[in-house]
């Protein structure tokens, strides 16, 4: 098996044909707000993520990071404000916005009774991917799971399930990839495969939003970083050159404030 550090074959081809010269950013949020009853989870966020960028989003539990991702993924409607996913406006864009998004969460979102290949092929069909079976096999190759294609998900370890879940989320070559703590439960090999896959996606022009507690992995992939607290970005800046330890101090200061 190839070394985790070498580039992968089978990098996804992203649909670029219809991007205009004044291409809208892959993700745009304008005063995006989401409340649950009286609790404000996401508070008037305005930001953008362009193709090929990765926004690493850090913050304590309850800051609203998961809620933000779910709004961008189309699972939750914004209470107020708007978002643009691949140029499609939310609220309202519905299926068109969801078609270009891939969502990865710490739950696998898989059917444990079906095999890895069946799960991924089903997802490919949901997105209308041509030749869904081939696309599914490609996605499995990508996460180095070819020999597990016919294993029922139930029989796979947590780490392998997470990799299947990632393959499932990107089988349709999404322009926007939203990741909610994807490194949870992954061992060294899994984490390395994930990081390599994400680098590859970034290289092909996808826009990533990566929510993670693992500052190191997040910083390695990030082009921009943000620290979220109580529904707002208390810090949002390009990655810069801070080393991990220095950034750790920045983080602690930001959430302690």
């Amino acid at each position: 098996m190839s070394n985790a550090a070498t580039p992968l074959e089978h990098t996804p081809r992203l649909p670029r044909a219809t991007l205009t010269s004044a291409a809208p950013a892959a993700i745009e949020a304008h005063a995006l707000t989401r409340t649950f009853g009286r609790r404000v989870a996401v508070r008037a966020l305005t930001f953008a993520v362009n193709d090929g960028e990765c926004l690493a989003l850090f913050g304590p539990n309850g800051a609203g990071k998961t809620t933000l991702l779910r709004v961008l993924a189309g699972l939750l409607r914004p209470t107020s404000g708007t978002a643009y996913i691949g140029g499609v406006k939310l609220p309202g864009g519905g299926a068109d916005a969801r078609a270009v998004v891939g969502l990865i969460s710490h739950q696998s979102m898989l059917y444990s009774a079906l095999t890895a290949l069946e799960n991924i092929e089903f997802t490919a069909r949901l997105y209308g991917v041509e030749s869904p079976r081939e696309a599914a096999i490609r996605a499995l190759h990508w996460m180095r799971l070819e020999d597990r294609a016919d294993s029922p998900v139930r029989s796979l370890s947590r780490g392998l399930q997470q990799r299947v879940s990632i393959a499932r989320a990107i089988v349709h070559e999404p322009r926007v990839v939203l990741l909610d703590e994807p490194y949870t439960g992954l061992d060294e090999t899994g984490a390395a495969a994930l990081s390599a896959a994400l680098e590859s996606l970034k290289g092909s022009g996808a826009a990533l939003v990566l929510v993670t507690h693992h500052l190191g992995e997040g910083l390695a992939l990030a082009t921009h970083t943000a620290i979220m607290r109580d529904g707002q970005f208390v810090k949002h800046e390009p990655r810069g050159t801070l080393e991990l330890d220095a950034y750790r101090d920045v983080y602690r200061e930001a959430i302690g404030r």
Partner: protein
Amino acid sequence: MSARTPPGTLAAAALIARKDLAIEFRTRSAFLSAIVFSLLAIAIFYFAWDATAVSSVDLAPGVLWVIFTFSGILGLHRSFGVEEADRAIDALLVSPVDREAVFLGKALANLAFVLGVQALAIPAVALFYNLPLTRVLAPLIGIAVLAAIGLVAVGTLFSSMAANTRLAELLLPVLALPFFVPIVLPAAQTTARLLAGRPISEAMGWLRILIAFDIVFVVACALAFPFTLED
């Protein structure tokens, strides 16, 4: 945007139904449980209600449709249980398929499940109660299909809600059974008439209620389904 087109509502529903049936086929335990339950219930009812005292033609319709209801409910719960387990439902909802397609797909799979159980339960009732099934078989199948449609429409919607709660398996019958009255009553009355040798035209009033129920509730439940999803 990409040139690919996500499947339309019906195509997506078929896709989801196939997936649900594939999962059910893989494990089969829910289907087998529902069948075993039906057979057990038929046997117990048969002993409890002495068919020598009251004619079996009078007892059988009630037994048949009561068992239909309870075994139908048994199978419904797994429909959303499998989606809740690892939040697979999120993957469905994040995809471009619309919410009505999710409902239709699951309802179709449930329909296949219920009809599959009935295909074994009805002959079993005929066996125990010595019913002359052959001449009433065609209309009986029709009634079974109509009743199953109504049951599945309501049951799929309520199981979507129940799956999210603490009391899931108990909540589903509590919510759904009052809604099954306009299904069970017409079905039992029509079956009774058929078994007594009356022509089906005599039962048209009941059948109209059943058909109207199916139409109204399939539409209403499909429209209500998106409201049971977090938004």
